Structure formats: structure tokens, C-alpha cells
């Protein structure tokens, strides 16, 4: 065994669906049609009040473990930015809830839209270093809990969801070379400012209204859309090029490209800028929205289920966002 591959992906979306029609009724001057036209999102799934990232992770992983022997899992990685607790790690809770062996390694890591790429990089490393053979990697997000109820911009874009990915050893290197990047100078542009140790949760935090009419407090998610977009225009074409070089490939050698599903407008611009043909570029935010670290595996599974991506295809996956953090690799499906 010389490589690692993605053996299986399962996903879970919460039952409750928030539609654009509902958002239109909530916010004055907000048109359902316009939200879809601008963002590419018609509806998104929202976790229930008592439903957390670990719950979503559990649902997704249980689907996968119906097809795989749980006893074979020897490492568990959870990526989330909406953890159940500061401590302990959600991955430890999941070991027990999923009935996995107590001889496994388990850890959480905190990344957003680039999380899927970094999780794959770690899983590949663990397998190729012969530390683990069957890595269960889960991305699970409930960003809705970070978003103010009157923050119409972010409520239009983000949805909750989880993906469970089984990565195992393989004869060939189905998870290719990685191009990764980090630039902490943009940390303030996608942030929940209060609630950690730097600025503690503020029970009487002042309501802040932006020019578009969205309201938040320091306890809620803040996204500086224009600066995040500018960052992606700089970072994404570069990381795609670096990834192609590391894998000794050209765009034409790829069968498909899946970007983090940020929003339709941004993706269309990036696709054109990078020079990816429309028929090789997958977008699926219409019914799920931006589920942060879960967007790429959800899109990957959907595209396989719909027969767009086939076994043997070479697919570039690219994640970018909060941090700033970004990364890309090429998968052989």
C-alpha cells in the first residue's frame, strides 16, 4: 500500500429547511427571487435548537458505518467551528456515540471553508506514515448558531450540514499532492469576535447595523464580504496553479473541479478567472447553501450520485476562507 483514497462519503442535512420565501417574509425589501439570483441559494438546512455539530456528525457517520465495519476505524478526525464544548473535543464524544474502539486516535481541528482539504492532508499523512489504516474524517457545521437572527446577509448564504468521509490505504496515490496556504492578516474579516478568551461572551452586547441593514453583535458571526472576495481573487487562481504544478497536470487533464461552495457569484467569477470550462465546474448550493467545511464533500457526493463524476475521474478540490486559510489537491475517484 503506497497511497490513500476516499472510499466512501455520506452526508447529513438537518430536517428544517429555511427557504428564500421565508426570508422574504422576515425582511422588508428582500426578494426571494433576488436572493437566489445573487447567491445561487434557494433554501438551506438549519439545525434545531438542541441539535449540535456532534449530532450532525453522528448522523452522517452512522450512515457510513452501516456500510463499513466500525471496528475497522482506527482514527477519527472532526473538523468544526461550532463545537459542542470548548472541551472536551467533539471527536472524543463521537468515539463513544459511534461505538468505535477505545484504541483509536481522535482529534478535533478548527478550520472553516478550507477544512476538508486539510483533513484530507492529515488523513493521507496518517495512512502513509502507517499510523492508521481507516481514518473516519467528519466535517460538521452549525454556523446558523453563530448568526444573528437579523443578519439577513449571512442567513441567506450559510446552511448547516455534515459529511463523513472514510479514507483508507490504497495501491495507488488517489489523494494527490497538496498546495496549502495561510494568511492570518485577514483574521478579522470572518470572525465571531466575542465568546472566546480574548473577548468573553457579552450578555448585553450592543446591536451593530451595517449599511445593508443586517444586524449583529460582537457575539455573532461577522463577515466582511468585499474583503473576503478580494482575498479569494488573489489566493484561488494561485493555489489552483500551484496544485496543478505539484501534480504535474494542466486544467485540461482534470475531469472536474469542485470549489468550496461560497456563493454562486464568487464562484462564477473565479471559474472564469482561472479558466475552468463551465462543463467541468460543479456548483450545488441551490438546496444547501454554504455549509462551510462540508460543502466540498457534499458536492463531491452529489456529483457522483448524479453520475457527473465517475470512478477513475481526476477531480481538483479547492477550499478557501476563514483564517485566511486555503488549500487544494487532486483526487482520483
Amino acid at each position, binding site marked *: 500500500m503506497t497511497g490513500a483514497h476516499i472510499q466512501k462519503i455520506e452526508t447529513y442535512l438537518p430536517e428544517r429547511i429555511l427557504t428564500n420565501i421565508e426570508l422574504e417574509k422576515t425582511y422588508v425589501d428582500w426578494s426571494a427571487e433576488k436572493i437566489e439570483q445573487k447567491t445561487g441559494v434557494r433554501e438551506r438546512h438549519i439545525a434545531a435548537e438542541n441539535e449540535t455539530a456532534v449530532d450532525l456528525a453522528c448522523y452522517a457517520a452512522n450512515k457510513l458505518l452501516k456500510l463499513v465495519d466500525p471496528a475497522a476505524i482506527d482514527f477519527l478526525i472532526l473538523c468544526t467551528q461550532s463545537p459542542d464544548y470548548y472541551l472536551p473535543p467533539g471527536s472524543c464524544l463521537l468515539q463513544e456515540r459511534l461505538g468505535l474502539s477505545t484504541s483509536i486516535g481522535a482529534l478535533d481541528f478548527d478550520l472553516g471553508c478550507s477544512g476538508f482539504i486539510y483533513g484530507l492532508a492529515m488523513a493521507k499523512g496518517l495512512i502513509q506514515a502507517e499510523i492508521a489504516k481507516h481514518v473516519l474524517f467528519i466535517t460538521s457545521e452549525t454556523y446558523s448558531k453563530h448568526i444573528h437572527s437579523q443578519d439577513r446577509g449571512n442567513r441567506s448564504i450559510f446552511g448547516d450540514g455534515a459529511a463523513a468521509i472514510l479514507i483508507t490505504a490504497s495501491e495507488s496515490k488517489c489523494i494527490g499532492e497538496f498546495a496549502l496556504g495561510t494568511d492570518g492578516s485577514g483574521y478579522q474579516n470572518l470572525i465571531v469576535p466575542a465568546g472566546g478568551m480574548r473577548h468573553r461572551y457579552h450578555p448585553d452586547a450592543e446591536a451593530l447595523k451595517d449599511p*445593508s441593514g443586517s444586524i449583529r453583535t460582537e457575539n455573532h458571526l461577522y463577515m466582511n*464580504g468585499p474583503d473576503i472576495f478580494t482575498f479569494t481573487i488573489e489566493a484561488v487562481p494561485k493555489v489552483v496553479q500551484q496544485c496543478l504544478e505539484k501534480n504535474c497536470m494542466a486544467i485540461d487533464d482534470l475531469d472536474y473541479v469542485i470549489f468550496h461552495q461560497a456563493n454562486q*457569484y464568487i464562484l462564477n467569477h473565479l471559474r472564469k478567472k482561472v479558466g475552468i470550462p463551465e462543463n467541468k465546474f460543479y456548483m450545488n448550493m441551490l438546496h444547501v447553501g454554504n455549509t462551510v467545511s462540508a460543502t466540498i464533500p457534499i458536492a463531491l457526493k452529489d456529483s457522483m450520485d448524479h453520475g457527473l463524476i465517475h470512478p477513475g475521474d481526476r477531480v481538483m478540490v479547492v477550499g478557501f476562507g476563514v483564517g485566511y486559510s486555503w488549500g487544494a489537491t487532486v483526487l482520483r475517484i
Partner: protein
Amino acid sequence: MQKSEFYDILMETLEIESVDSLNESTVLTDLEEYDSLAVLSLIAMIDEHFGKRIPGTEFQKITTVKSLMDLIGVDFE
């Protein structure tokens, strides 16, 4: 770039239908099409046509079409 060409690009970028034409003194922020996603459209347009990237906070200074042209910082004929 000719000013008239720039106005056409701007009309298309912001999908402006509420006025027949633009000129330097048109107040962009008063147009109904100038919504929260308009800035993203402007960023994409400036990247595509001028190859420039302008910090997001600078867009808060935009009022008229002229102020946007100054922000882009190229000579329009």
C-alpha cells in the same frame, strides 16, 4: 478606456434598469440596484477590466460614478 464604454460596463455590472444613462455625477448609492452585493459585482468588474484589487473598506467611500472612477485610479478619456 472611454468614459462611455465604462458607463456601459457599469450599467451591465450593476444590472441598472432604473435610469436610462449614467454620467459622472450619478449617485450610485441612491440607485435601487446598489444593494449589499453590488460591491462584490464592482470588485469582480474592476478585477476583470482593470486587473486591480481595491480593499473592501474603500468601497464605503463611493457616492457618485466619479468617486468610483477615482477609486479605480485610471485615466478615462
